[in-house]
């Protein structure tokens, strides 16, 4: 055989071998669950601006496993992790793989807004599988009538409860500009804030809905109209960190109000010097700040490193789920009916306060308003400004808006 033939054949063989290995690997994946095993599929973003969420979900599940164990009534809990990139198509592929290939009994997730609606639609087609939401917070997730879907956290409108009034009455802001990522979570989150703020008498001076993953905010900063008292920042993860860094560089004169994932260790812990922009920023959400009196919160922080909103929400969800499995002693019941009854009866106080479910399997929760402060060592943290108990879900979900909703 001549060299030219060899050089042609080798790549063909290499591609053939790769393809065969891939097929073999694919066919081998997804072992079926045995009768003495309960398989839980954890769904969380591991790519994109919320890629850190998967790490937080793992930390949360590990912590719950330590606290409650992985064996109930002779059955062992097996965990399968599946990443997404935060988009609906990715969530759909991932949840289908967990249910149909890995044959999990329960799905714990997803972690991002748009994904949440897709997973609920899918849950409606899978009555034999129980779905426990991870950290996704669109309002209508629990209004779709999916009896097998549970959410042990507030929605993104609930998280903003009290913040609009606080901005108008306590801080005295009359005109606020909106900057937020362009997807369903900030729609609801900002909608919750501005509906309350505008009802109190405030005015919205304009809006910039930016694509997720935006790195340059110079145009937005320069387009904030004169007369604006403050800017609402509905960004999360690396986007929030980038914005705060650029706000400092641009010497932005406006005070900032954060969406529920803007004031977060991943943004506040950024290596860039963001203190000038971040200090004084306040937000509403499920994560308490310093000064919150709850021994479980202190214990949680001492045992889990770098707690943020995703760690807390996945922890609450996993804790409720494992407690439900423990309550039925590992026997999920016919069509998982016993487990679902146990989940519906959830009533526990966790690190983020008291949680019970309403008739839509939606949590009634505690909510917190926090403000960013600079600690003595120069690091940034949050302090508790106000807290609300037994916050219930409304029925309004928001679309993208450019003036008071």
């Amino acid at each position, binding site marked *: 055989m001549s060299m030219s033939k060899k050089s042609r054949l080798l790549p*063909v063989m290499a591609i053939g071998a790769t393809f065969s290995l891939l097929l073999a690997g694919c066919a081998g994946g997804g072992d079926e669950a045995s009768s003495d095993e309960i398989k839980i599929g954890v769904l969380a973003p591991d790519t994109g601006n919320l890629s850190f969420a998967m790490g937080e979900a793992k930390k949360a599940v590990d912590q719950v496993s330590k606290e409650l164990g992985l064996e109930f009534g002779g059955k062992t809990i097996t965990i399968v992790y599946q990443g997404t*990139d935060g*988009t609906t198509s990715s969530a759909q592929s991932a949840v289908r793989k967990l249910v149909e290939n890995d044959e999990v009994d329960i799905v714990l997730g997803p972690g991002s807004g*748009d994904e949440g609606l897709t997973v609920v639609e899918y849950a409606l087609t899978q009555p034999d599988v129980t779905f426990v939401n991870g950290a996704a917070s669109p309002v209508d997730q629990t209004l779709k009538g999916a009896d097998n879907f549970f959410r042990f956290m507030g929605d993104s409108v609930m998280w903003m409860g009290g913040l609009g009034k606080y901005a108008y009455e306590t801080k005295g802001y009359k005109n606020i500009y909106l900057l937020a990522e362009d997807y369903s979570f900030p729609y609801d989150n900002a909608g919750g804030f501005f509906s309350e703020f505008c009802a109190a008498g405030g005015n919205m001076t304009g809006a910039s809905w930016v694509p997720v993953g935006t790195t340059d905010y110079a145009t937005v900063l320069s387009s904030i109209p004169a007369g604006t008292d403050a800017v609402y920042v509905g960004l999360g993860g690396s986007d929030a960190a980038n914005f705060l860094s650029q706000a400092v560089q641009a010497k932005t004169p406006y005070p900032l109000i954060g969406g529920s994932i803007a004031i977060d260790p991943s943004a506040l812990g950024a290596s860039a010097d963001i203190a000038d922009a971040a200090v004084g920023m306040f937000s509403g959400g499920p994560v308490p700040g310093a000064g919150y009196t709850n021994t479980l919160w202190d214990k949680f922080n001492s045992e889990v490193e770098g707690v943020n909103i995703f760690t807390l929400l996945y922890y609450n969800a996993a804790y409720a789920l494992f407690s439900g499995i423990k309550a039925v002693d590992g026997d999920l019941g016919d069509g998982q009916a016993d487990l679902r009854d146990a989940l519906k009866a959830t009533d526990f106080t966790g690190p983020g306060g008291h949680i019970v479910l309403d008739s839509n399997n939606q949590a009634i929760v505690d909510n917190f308003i926090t403000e960013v402060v600079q600690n003595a060592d120069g690091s940034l943290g949050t302090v508790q400004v106000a807290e609300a108990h037994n916050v219930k879900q409304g029925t309004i979900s928001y*679309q993208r808006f450019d003036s008071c909703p």
Partner: protein
Amino acid sequence: MKSVITWFRNNRVLVSWLIPVIVLVVAIAFPYFIMKPKFWVPNIGIKTIWLGISAMSLTFLNRYLGLLSLAQVAVSAMSAYGIASAMVTFGLDWYIAIPIGLAVGTLLAAIIAIISIRTVAIYFLMITLAISQVIYSWVSQEVFVNGRRGLAPVRRPEFLLEMNNFYFFALAIAVFAYLACRYVASTPFGLSLEGIKDSPDRMRALGYSVSKYRFWAITFAGFIASLAGIIMVFDRAQADPDIVSLNSTLDVLIVAVLGGVTSIGGVFLGGLVFTLLDNFASDFTDRSMTLTGVIFVLILLFAPKGLTGVWEQLKGVFKKPSSSGAAKDLKTIAKEAVDTSSAKTKGKNQ
């Protein structure tokens, strides 16, 4: 072995149909020999088909018109939105919704054709990408299609609720799309397109209306892409902006490149590799996107014409070494003739 190769050489037309027929037989048998049909039929089989059809419309334009369009995903998506709007917003039946979806997608393709008809090469690619992104922004903000939340649920018709029925429905559409592309390519219209691809000026000089041919070719490719939209919307059970995002556009481009960007049928092979990687790369490593990227680069490196180009590479391997001038290709013969002729002329001049 020798006789097999000779048979293949002597029956090229038959062979050109033999491979698609074998692929079709394997595709028909697919739901019956896989271990977990509940997962593999929708997530690998059906997704491969709609990705493949969307990519097929792209490869059709590239192969026969020499234009690389990045608006094909937008066309598929608008077909999906047409069906979703008809069923979710207006409560129409599927048999009315599907023609509406096809009409919306094909109409969009015709509009894209009118806008981009006078551009070629990188300019055509950029203008189609821009149109695709405009549509993404529009559906993200348009209240009529429920903005970012999209339209859901888009329920499959009753006769497609059984997953195998849906798979064979999708397969039938794929066969129809493939045959339609090959048929159109074999007509005088298709041959004219190849002429336009090679030399639009010459075709214009011969009296052909190049713009008119391009318009109809882009519209036809849009119709093919719209077929993908039908399967996609019933597979995903929803239509949201994600189906027309830049990521989705790049997915279909990758499928086309993996399969072979000039191969009408190869797109399904590209689609298969893509869906396998999409679903299973994360089982091998936490850095699944990196693995997908590395495999993509390796395929491009070792099989620059895509996976269907591997067949050409194999033919090269088994090609009989030329012991005489009989195996010389036309190019070599022509070059030798020119050399001989110029040598003779030189001799005479001297």
